[in-house]
């Protein structure tokens, strides 16, 4: 074999190896970071900030709209939706916003992504001919499978369930829960059929024992839209608790702190209906802190803390110990 051919094979192997190990080299944040969407220069971008609201930086910097995102379980990657290719579809980027790449080879309207706790699969909302469906796929964009009618999915920390929102009728929005293994679906909230509005993606608590969501049930729903506020409920359906009072402007988009001691949410700041700022409420009647003050639209998406993440993805053979149980320790 000629030396030039040997050099070519060597260089090709190195390049191939590089593409394989590149995701491993992506670095997770060293400190806790909040991922949020904001409209500050005319379009929606994804930003990072510290848990106290400091050091807010734009990590997408793209003229298209970049919206809801989710940290990978190890914190090395962020899965997000962007309309940079005509309609919203899913993209992956490193935690610092670099190395943006499409998840799926074939474009479709996909958004609201959520990771399985071991990071090997993703669930998301996909719109097909004007209808919303929940899909599951592997995180490399393969094996896409439709599993339910509905949108806004959230994968439970123990990996067994997906909570999602279904429009069950005119002005009837419900949270359903899908068993990932059996594909059986059940209505979770509200416990009985009623006119009601669920205005957020359901948010599982890190231990998986509670769900937070924004809810409005005063009729007519549109007339009382400002009454939408934040609730938590146990996974067994008990202990429905209002977290933020209905007196103030509309509240939506809850995100749990990794320690499960606080909730982020977006609330209209009184300047206009579309003007939302991010707040942090410490649970148990703790203090509330405003984290953003600029821009017309700020909505929390996810909160990553390296102290509550596993350093590497767990191996499938060791999965009897689930991510959620590890997080409890």
């Amino acid at each position, binding site marked *: 074999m000629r030396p030039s051919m040997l050099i070519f094979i060597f260089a090709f192997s190195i390049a191939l190896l590089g593409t394989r190990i590149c995701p491993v080299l992506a670095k997770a944040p060293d400190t806790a970071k909040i991922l949020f*969407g904001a*409209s500050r220069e*005319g*379009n*929606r971008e994804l930003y990072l900030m510290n848990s106290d609201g400091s050091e807010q930086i734009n990590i997408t910097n793209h003229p298209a*709209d970049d*919206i*809801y995102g989710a940290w990978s379980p190890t914190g090395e990657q962020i899965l997000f939706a962007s*309309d940079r290719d*005509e*309609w*919203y579809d899913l993209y992956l980027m490193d935690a610092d916003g670099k190395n943006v790449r499409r998840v799926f080879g074939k*474009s*479709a*309207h996909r*958004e*609201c992504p959520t990771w399985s706790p071991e990071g090997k699969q993703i669930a998301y909302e996909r*719109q*097909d*001919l*004007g*209808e*919303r469906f929940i899909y599951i796929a592997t995180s490399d964009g393969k094996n896409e499978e439709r599993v339910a009618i509905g*949108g*806004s999915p959230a994968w439970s920390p123990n990996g067994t369930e997906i909570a999602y*929102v279904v*429009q069950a009728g005119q*002005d009837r*929005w419900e949270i359903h829960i899908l068993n990932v293994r059996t594909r059986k679906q059940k209505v979770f909230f509200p416990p009985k059929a009623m006119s009601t*509005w*669920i*205005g*957020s*993606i359901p948010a599982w608590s890190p231990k998986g024992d509670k769900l937070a969501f924004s809810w*409005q049930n005063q009729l007519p*729903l*549109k007339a009382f*839209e400002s009454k939408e506020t934040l609730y938590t409920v146990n996974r067994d359906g008990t202990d429905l608790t209002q977290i933020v009072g209905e007196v103030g402007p509309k509240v939506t988009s809850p995100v749990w702190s990794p320690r499960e001691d606080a909730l982020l949410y977006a609330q209209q700041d009184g300047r*206009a*209906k*579309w*003007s*939302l700022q991010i707040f942090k409420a410490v649970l148990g009647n703790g203090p509330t802190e405003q984290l953003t003050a600029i821009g*017309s*639209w700020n*909505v929390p998406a996810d909160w990553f803390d390296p102290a509550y993440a596993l350093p590497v993805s767990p191996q499938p053979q060791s999965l009897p110990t689930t991510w959620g149980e590890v997080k409890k320790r």
Partner: protein
Amino acid sequence: MKNNLRGKIREFLASEDGKVSVKAPLTLGVVTGGIFLAQAIIGPTSATACPCQHDWQCPNPPHICSVGTCIGG
């Protein structure tokens, strides 16, 4: 007999009655079908057809999603 029938059909299609009752609806059907087919091939548009659930499913601020409907602007 067969040629005779074909001739009569051609004659009918060329007539004013044939144009109104067969040719025009057929053309309309083919055009409409073509539009639907093109829509299916092109795929979804960024403007969502189903009720919104989140603000980002509406055009940029000042539009927001209110109980399944985009408002503002």
